[in-house]
């Protein structure tokens, strides 16, 4: 198990390198610079002198290869550069936002798991029942509703009409502020989880070893507890991992909508003004998060399924 863990962790490194390079290439190709974007609102006439001075200051005039070399050497020292706009280290900017981001995606995922998995499970145990039909209709709706619209709906209902919860903002970081954005963000993974749980459990129920379990004289409840649950978990963990990993990235829209101070809104703001170091750093962190979750999922797999450690 230790060797397996080490191997999986080592496999992350090359991925990070490739992603870092890709990010650099993409943003050296994207048109527009920070200096130009300062005048993009059209209120002032573009000042060529200022633009030239800023480009000089940020090193944007240097040849591509030289900029690349700086980027890579800085990265190797875990230095993500300095923001063009605030002149703060990118690491600090991300650090400030990371807590809120994690809070939001963890809360959304917990909500999705706590609701989605049990419903999917029960639906699979009684296929064709009322519960099954309702769950699946709910899941389809959850997947097809645009989440920003669903967020607005929740906001209208619980904040404006009922006045139970604050409509937006981080506030003092209390649970009350977290509920609406977390539920909105959690709806898509919830629907997906309910569906994959149902499919996974149905699959297991049709397996030969379930027939064996019945032939031993086990009650339905014991068959589920002793043989179905663990086997169905494999598929559930996969879905949880995939969803969880991409959640921080997906949160962009929701963070904007609820004015949530997370990584996602930092990314959007920085792209708009071509604050390239922040954009690069943020994307790198999102990718890294995805890889961490993925690796964790692999390790959980290995703990559930003895066949995986062998391969």
């Amino acid at each position, binding site marked *: 198990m230790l060797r397996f863990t080490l191997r999986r962790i080592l496999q992350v490194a090359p991925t990070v390198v490739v992603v870092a390079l890709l990010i650099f290439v993409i943003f050296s190709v994207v048109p527009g610079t920070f200096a130009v974007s300062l005048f993009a609102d059209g209120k002032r006439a573009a000042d060529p002198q200022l633009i030239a001075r800023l480009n000089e200051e940020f090193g944007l005039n240097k040849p591509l290869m030289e900029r690349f070399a700086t980027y890579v050497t800085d990265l190797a020292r875990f230095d993500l550069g300095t923001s063009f706009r605030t002149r703060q280290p990118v690491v600090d900017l991300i650090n400030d936002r990371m807590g809120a981001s994690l809070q939001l995606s963890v809360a959304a995922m917990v909500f999705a798991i706590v609701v989605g998995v049990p419903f999917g499970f029960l639906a699979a145990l009684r296929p064709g029942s009322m519960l099954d039909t309702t769950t699946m209709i709910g899941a389809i709706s959850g997947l097809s509703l645009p989440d920003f619209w669903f967020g607005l709906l929740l906001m209208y209902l619980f904040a404006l009409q009922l006045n139970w919860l604050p409509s937006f903002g981080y506030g003092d970081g209390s649970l009350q502020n977290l509920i609406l954005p977390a539920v909105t963000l959690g709806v898509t993974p919830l629907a997906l989880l309910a569906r994959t749980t149902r499919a996974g459990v149905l699959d297991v129920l049709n397996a030969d070893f379930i027939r064996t379990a019945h*032939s*031993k004289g*086990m009650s339905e409840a014991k068959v589920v507890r002793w043989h179905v649950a663990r086997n169905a978990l494999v598929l559930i963990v996969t879905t949880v991992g995939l969803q969880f990993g991409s959640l921080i990235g997906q949160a962009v829209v929701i963070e904007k909508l609820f004015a949530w101070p997370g990584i996602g809104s930092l990314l959007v703001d920085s792209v708009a003004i071509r604050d390239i170091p922040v954009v690069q750093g943020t994307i790198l962190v999102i990718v890294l998060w995805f890889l961490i979750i993925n690796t964790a999922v692999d390790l959980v797999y290995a703990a559930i399924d003895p066949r995986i450690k062998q391969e």
Partner: protein
Amino acid sequence: MTMPLLDIRDLRLSVPLGRFALHPLLKGVSFQIMPGEAYGLVGESGSGKSVTSLAVMGLLKKPLAVTGGQILFKGQNLLALPMREMRRLRGNRIAMIFQEPMTALNPLSTVGRQIAEMFVLHQGKSWGEAEKLAVESLGNVRVPNPDRRAKNYPHQMSGGLRQRVMIAMALACGPDLLIADEPTTALDVTVQAEVLRLIKELCAARGTAVLFISHDLGVIASICQRVGVMYSGCLVEENETRALFDSPRHEYTRGLLGALPRLGSRSEQGRQRLVDIDSIIADRSKLTESRFITPRELEGSQP
């Protein structure tokens, strides 16, 4: 006269076709198994052997349904038994071994634990005791190093070993009847012989009756005292194994036997002509009732 252990009377099974029609799968099958007897059911795929055994276990899945007849086990009609009672018999008094040892065991659970479940379920043992008994059971089916093997997962075992685990599991509670549904079909020939011998010896030693299902006449001949031949949902012939092989009465049985290649009976150019069964049996749908149809009738139904 002793009472038969298993007495299947006029068992009928069907699957619904559309809303009103029923497609019969078993058309009134009757046979008996005496305590300690090994009874073989042969027939081609789809002849109804496996559904018969599943009906005995009460493991038929929808939309399959029993539409008539009785399954008497020690005089008790299993079809009328409440679920709870049936569960108490299943695995405990009537146990089953399946064809696919590769998929019949839970891949995420050790084989020891899977055998131990039997003792927990039917003898109310604690897990600790049950695991010890499981190791013992593995020893009984001649698995080498049973205490080490008990900690193995199914994927760490060969097909033959897994089938031994299945046998250990089935015989764990000392059942009166063991149903073996093609238990050796998925194994290679040398392992097949070992597993067969194991089933034969263990059941003989404990006085366990066996309902042995196979399409392989050779396997049936080596283990069973009596044989029933199934075709298209009917039991077309039944006899003592030796008598059946020596003088098959039914055309289909003769066809089955004729389809076996025989050592030493070569004809010209070292080639042997095997009988093709389709040329013997004509229209399946004409077989509506299970009875010992005479060869003449079958010939008459040929186009």
